[in-house]
């Protein structure tokens, strides 16, 4: 019983932390975008208003049970990956489920939510949603390849599939994996561009053509859960990158600095980019990123 309580408590604390950091990042990215466009932009806490407003919407509609459950699927992915990814180095924070799953479990749980949400979006009957979903799934097939290649390169180089072990190796040697396995890092960062769905890979939402795609029928509380899961998931993914490539973090400040630098890569790349067509996006990931992934595997296997 005590164990369950501890897990629950850890989950809640991690969730709240990820929620606040993630939402703040979304606000900051809006400011950055505004400054690039020579605007002032909203305050950094703007997205808290947005989220709270969505939560306090009075009415809501749904198109059936799958649509109703869709955001919950999305949340499972966000929270599960948050629980599996260690947030700080050396167990100085809740260990949550760090030792229960490994990288391959993580890869699979990360597509659980998008697929569940895709089912919800499918039930709305809105053709835009279905088109957005097909685009999103195609893009997943695109960026998962370099992403998995990078991870496999790390796994075979350090003979482990556990995230905690990869962090410990960095702590022991004092070298970040982004320097010892540079190709894997490049491939993973290029895959991250697709994962975060900023331009030019924002083909799923694409408000101008698809009316925000899979989310087009979600309003109020559904959009609230989607937005918060997006924030939590973004934080979890950034933490994962920091953990396996940038030596993890010992306290919140270092974590925030490192994740924010990483987060700026897709944001800044997105601001100055137009949008790809779906097949261009897929082929992009099968081009250079995959080549870097191959180089990473070669480096891990033969060096």
């Amino acid at each position, binding site marked *: 019983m005590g164990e369950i309580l501890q897990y629950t408590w850890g989950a809640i604390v991690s969730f709240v932390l990820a929620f606040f950091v993630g939402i703040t990042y979304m606000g900051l990215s809006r400011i950055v975008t505004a400054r690039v466009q020579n605007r002032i932009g909203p305050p950094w806490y703007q997205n808290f208003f947005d989220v709270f407003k969505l939560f306090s919407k009075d009415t809501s509609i749904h198109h059936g049970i799958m649509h109703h459950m869709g955001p919950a699927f999305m949340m499972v992915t966000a929270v599960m990956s948050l629980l599996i990814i260690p947030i700080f180095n050396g167990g100085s924070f809740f260990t949550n489920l760090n030792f229960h799953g490994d990288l391959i479990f993580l890869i699979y749980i990360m597509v659980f939510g998008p697929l569940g949400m895709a089912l919800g979006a499918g*039930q709305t009957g809105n053709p835009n949603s279905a088109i957005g979903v097909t685009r999103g799934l195609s893009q997943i097939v695109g960026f998962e390849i370099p992403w998995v290649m990078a991870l496999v390169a790390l796994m075979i180089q350090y003979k482990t599939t556990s995230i905690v072990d990869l962090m410990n190796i960095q702590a022991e040697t004092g070298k970040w994996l982004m320097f010892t396995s540079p190709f894997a890092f490049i491939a993973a960062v290029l895959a991250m561009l697709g994962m975060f769905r900023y331009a030019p890979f924002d083909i799923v939402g694409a408000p101008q053509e698809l009316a925000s795609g899979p989310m087009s029928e979600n309003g109020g509380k559904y959009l609230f859960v989607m937005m918060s899961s997006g924030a939590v998931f973004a934080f979890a993914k950034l933490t994962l990158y920091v953990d396996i490539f940038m030596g993890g973090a010992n306290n919140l400040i270092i974590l925030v600095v490192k994740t924010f630098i990483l987060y700026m890569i897709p944001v800044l790349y997105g601001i100055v980019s137009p949008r790809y067509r779906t097949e261009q996006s*897929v082929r992009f990931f099968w081009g250079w990123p995959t080549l870097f992934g191959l180089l990473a595997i070669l480096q891990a296997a033969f060096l």
Partner: protein
Amino acid sequence: MNMIFILFAVLLGGALLTFFSNKVSGLLRDIFFLLTVLAAGVFFYLFIKKGDTVSFSLAGLNLQWGLNAFGWYFSLIVLGLSTLAAFYALAYMRGKERLGYFYFNFLVSILSMLGILMSRDLVSFFVFWEIMTWSSYFIVIYNGKNVQRNGINYIIFSTIGAYAMLTAIVLVYTNTDSLIISDMITSYPQFTPVLQIFVPILFLMAFSVKAAMMPLHVWAPDAYSNSPMAYSSVFSGALSKMGIYGMIIVFVTMISYLPDSTWFKEIFAWLGAITAIMGTLWAVSQDDARKLLAYSSIAQLGYIITGVAIGTELAMLSALFLAVLHGLFKGALFMAVGAIERQTGTVNFTEVTGLIRKMPWTFIASLLAIIALAGIPPLGGFVGKWMLYESLINSNHYILVIAIFFASTAAFLYCYKFLFGFFLGQEEKEWEHVKEAPALMVVPMMILAIGTVVLGTFPGIILKPADIAMQSLGYAPTEGHLWSMSVLFNEWGDQVLLKPLVYAIAGIFLFFLILLTVKGWKTMRYVTTKDISSSGEVPLEDENLTFSINFFQPFMRAAGPVMKKRMITYYREFGKAIDILFDFTRRIYNGNGQTYAIYVMIFLVILLLLKNNLFG
């Protein structure tokens, strides 16, 4: 009399009774059919023990039948799936023609599969293999549609496989003077090097045809999709596993004794991976659900073949686990397609949409089966995929693991297409009358789907018999260091503890589902799928807004280059080339006596010219 004889007598007698009682009454026929399947299952598990063998002599040949742990493991798939499919078939086949014929072949193919699993000598193995081919062939052409294309493809490839196997058997017999399989295995290391390579290749040809491996898969899409769905679930779920069964035996008992077997295994592993990739890509492009599942079966068997070919403990374990799991989810999916076919009359994604509210149980069964197929935790598919990846990474197959990963990621596309095409999307007036399928059809597929859920948390249920089966093949016991009831380990000692993960997933999901439901419960309401935000326009009743044609067009464009040529075109070109060759040979006989005289002259001249060389 030995129990094994009685089992076969029960099955054959039941089949004949079913066939002839068809003339008397339909009810009697159904009862006989069901009783035979159930009796065979009960009899098999109650009276036939692992290690039972019986030897007898027939027409001067020493034959031996028996059951070992490995065969017993595969009998789980055969009998489990066949029993459920038999119940399903009763409802599915109601009102169709020539039911006696169908049920007879159904039972005979169960008999032949059990026969293959229990054959301890090559002759009965071959005979049962042929019975299996023919009984399934008769069911493939049962519909009577496109017999030329579906049936002939299947039988030609099966015949090629059978000839290969027969050649191998003759080769073995001339070298060892015995037809008992264990004799062949013990004397295999003493074969000549050429024979050591040819015998397994010939056997593997036969087995790869049944397992639908590239490039011998050409028959599979048509054959799987054209048999009645009640049989397709057995066909794809259990019958194709016979190929895997044979492959495992060949790989473990022969290939691993080759002096340099790595390249052989590599080639097979890559063939499996290419099968998986191409099967998946073709499945994504299908609009017919049966075809989609058929290509998906090919792809899933590709994973299993890769696992078998790698052959480490973890890889073999994953192959055996995936074999059972594929039976579960593909059985359920074919049954779901059958249910939809029966209720709506079509299986085309572009025609039927929005069945989720009309056929909820079919939806739940296919949802669970699809999640298992996609390999997403917390369902059983993840366990098999995890073990396969880890075994590939642990055994230094780095590029292979990427290929397999690509195939299983691209599988999400057709998984979504299947669910969206049938169950989601706009609810059309055309399908308003559709009702849920009868319980006799829904219950078997629900049982199969729930099986995948249980195996997701407690894979040990199946891994234990798989482990015993592997031990009977000479592997070391793996319990404790590669798996336990709900924990998985890889060879580096990394672990996945399934139970807490599953509970966490369920807990998080329930929490947010309750949050979504309770918050604003009073002001939440259901709106129809016509009430969508489509630029302020209200779609009319008969306006179909579902997006289902060219569903994955952008992806197909991106993946297009690898799909330009189909294997069948190569076979056709090969056939044409043979045609031209024969046509040319035919021209020698032009019916003119003068020409023949010249041939004789030329022949004599050649003889004279080469006289010294030939007779000197």
